[in-house]
Structures are given as C-alpha cells and as structure tokens.
C-alpha cells in the first residue's frame, strides 16, 4: 500500500481534476454521449419540453434510460407511474456504486466527499472509472473521478443542446442510428474492459436472460436479470476458483 504513504507527494486536486476532465473528453464515451444525447435532445423538443429543462434533466438525473422514460411518459402518464419506471430503470446504480466505493477508500475521504462522485456515476463514467482509477494513487481518485464525470456529462449537455435545435430537421433513420449508438458502445466497452470470466459471463448471460425475463413480464426485469445472471456468473466464477485451488499443488 505504498500509495497510502503520507510521504508521497500527490498532485494538487485542481490538476488531478483537469487530468480526469481530459480523460473524460478523450474517452470514446464522450462521442457516444454526444451522439446519444442528440437523440434525447430531439425527443425532448418533440414532447414540448424547454431547452433548459432538458439541460437540467441531464444534470440532475444523468441516466439516459431514465431520461428517455421521463421525456416520453411525463406528458401522458400519472406522476407515480413515471417515478416508478424511473426508479426501476436506475436500480442498476446501487450495485454499480457499491462496486465503485471501495476504490475510493482512503484516509481522510468522508462520506460527503463521495456524494458528488456518486451523483456523476453513470454507466459511461463507471466503466471508465473502473478502468482508470486502479492506476491512480488513492489520494487522487476523488478529484480524478469528479473530472472524469464532469468531462463526460459535458458531452451529454452539448449533445442534448445540439439535438434540441436539430430536432426539426433530423431524418428518422439518422435518429435511429444515434439511438443505436448506446447499446453498441456498451457491448464493446464492457467486453474490452472485462477483466475476468466473471465479467464476460455476467454480460453474456444478461443479454440472454434479459429478454426472457422481459418476455415473462414479471416486472422489475432489469433487477431480476441482474440478480439471476449476475449470481450464476458469480457461482461459476467461485466454482472455477475452487477447482483451480484444488488442482494446483
């Protein structure tokens, strides 16, 4: 744990923040977010929301699926229904944040220092954070992650703003192409960053179990898919670990 040593001079928080910001802006996700939020901004325009409301929803909600639900149902559904759908679409943040938190454990890091990093956590920031944080000294991780998150959320804000103005002119096929960006990018970035069998298996199982659970119509399909596919992947991982330990002398 040499990085916890108080002798080690760590870079100043503003500098680390800027480095994180740079990583965010240079991440492939930045362009993915611009593209994806172009579609979202256009959708907000079509449903009659204001420019500033769209920007506020990105800053406050910062979850594309939840924002898609909000924008497309708010004008027609009961508020309770909308809130329930949004909360179900965001359940994934619980395990994501819980998996991320240990990376920030360091002396002097208080619970409230983590409120902003956790708010900035969306799939894109999480994937990049899980990849980049382990290489940073612990003392620098909060500032770096905040920079990363602000860099990526600015891509979403820019995309949303441009999409809002383009809405009147966007041909349907181009809009469909933009919406397709998200699943493609998630699929490939997750497989590129998959460190272990656990990650790959969980992802592959999730792709298969997700549509089945959705088709069975239990409700809460994202949560059930995560629990079922994630648990199977974890059990297979444990079984393999146990077998490897058993076979090596």
């Amino acid at each position: 744990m040499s990085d916890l040593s108080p002798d080690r001079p760590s870079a100043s928080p503003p500098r680390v923040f800027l480095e994180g910001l740079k990583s965010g802006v240079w991440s492939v996700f930045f362009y993915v977010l611009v593209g994806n939020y172009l579609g979202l901004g256009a959708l907000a325009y079509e449903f009659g929301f204001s420019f500033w409301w769209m920007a506020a929803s990105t800053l406050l909600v910062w979850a594309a699926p939840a924002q898609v639900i909000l924008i497309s149902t708010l004008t027609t559904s009961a508020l309770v229904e909308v809130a329930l759908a949004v909360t179900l679409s965001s359940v994934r943040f619980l395990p994501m944040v819980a998996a991320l938190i240990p990376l920030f454990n360091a002396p002097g890091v208080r619970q409230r220092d983590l409120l902003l990093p956790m708010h900035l956590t969306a799939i894109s920031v999480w994937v990049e954070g899980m990849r980049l944080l382990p290489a940073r000294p612990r003392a620098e991780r909060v500032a770096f992650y905040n920079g990363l998150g602000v860099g990526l959320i600015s891509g979403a804000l820019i995309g949303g703003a441009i999409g809002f103005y383009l809405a009147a002119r966007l041909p349907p096929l181009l809009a469909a192409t933009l919406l397709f960006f998200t699943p493609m990018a998630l699929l490939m970035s997750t497989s590129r960053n998959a460190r272990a069998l656990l990650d790959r298996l969980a992802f592959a199982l999730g792709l298969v179990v997700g549509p089945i659970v959705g088709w069975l119509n239990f409700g809460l399909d994202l949560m059930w898919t995560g629990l079922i596919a994630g648990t199977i992947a974890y059990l297979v991982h444990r079984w393999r670990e146990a077998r490897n330990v058993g076979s090596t002398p």
Partner: protein
Amino acid sequence: MTELQSLVILILVGFLPSEVWRWLGLVLGRGLDENSEIILWVRGVATALIAAVVARIIFIPPGTLAGVPLSVRVAALAIGFLAFLFIRRSAFAGVVVGEAVLITGAIAFGS
C-alpha cells in the same frame, strides 16, 4: 405548466427516484473490500444489469429505432460485435460496422 412547476416535477419524479439508488449504494458499499466475495457478486449483478439495458434497447427500442425491424437490430449488434472482435478489438470499428449494417438493413428491409 410553468418553468418552475416542470422543474419541481423533474426533481420529484426524475432526480429523487433515480438518485436514491446512488445514495443506497454509497451507504452499502462503504467499508467493503474491492476483492471481497460480496463485491465480486455485486460486480456480476451490475454487469448483467448493463447487458439487460443493451438487450432492452434492442428488443424494446425507444423512438425512431422502433422503425427498424427487430431482425436488423439484432443482426447489426451481432455483426458490429464480430467486427469489433476481428478488427483489433477496436470499439470504433465495431460501431461503424454495426451502424452501417443498421442503415443498410433499415433501407433494404424497413417499411
């Protein structure tokens, strides 16, 4: 609806229902070791949830993507992923190939 009303609604049915899971993750995740068994399990669950989001966008697509036939959406994702695997694991190549298949398929088989 006034601008203030729509902002209050955004906070009540958008921000709070979504943010509460981040707060819960913060409360539950503190003090856990990153390689502990529970965190490994949670990582599996989170990864599977992301896969479920991908599957949902493909099978229950939002907006204009619904205008592209399901077979084209699935084929575009699969061929894009194969391109990613074979072209030096480049996400950019995968996205370009997948999008090209989507556009071609939508023009050829779309309504």
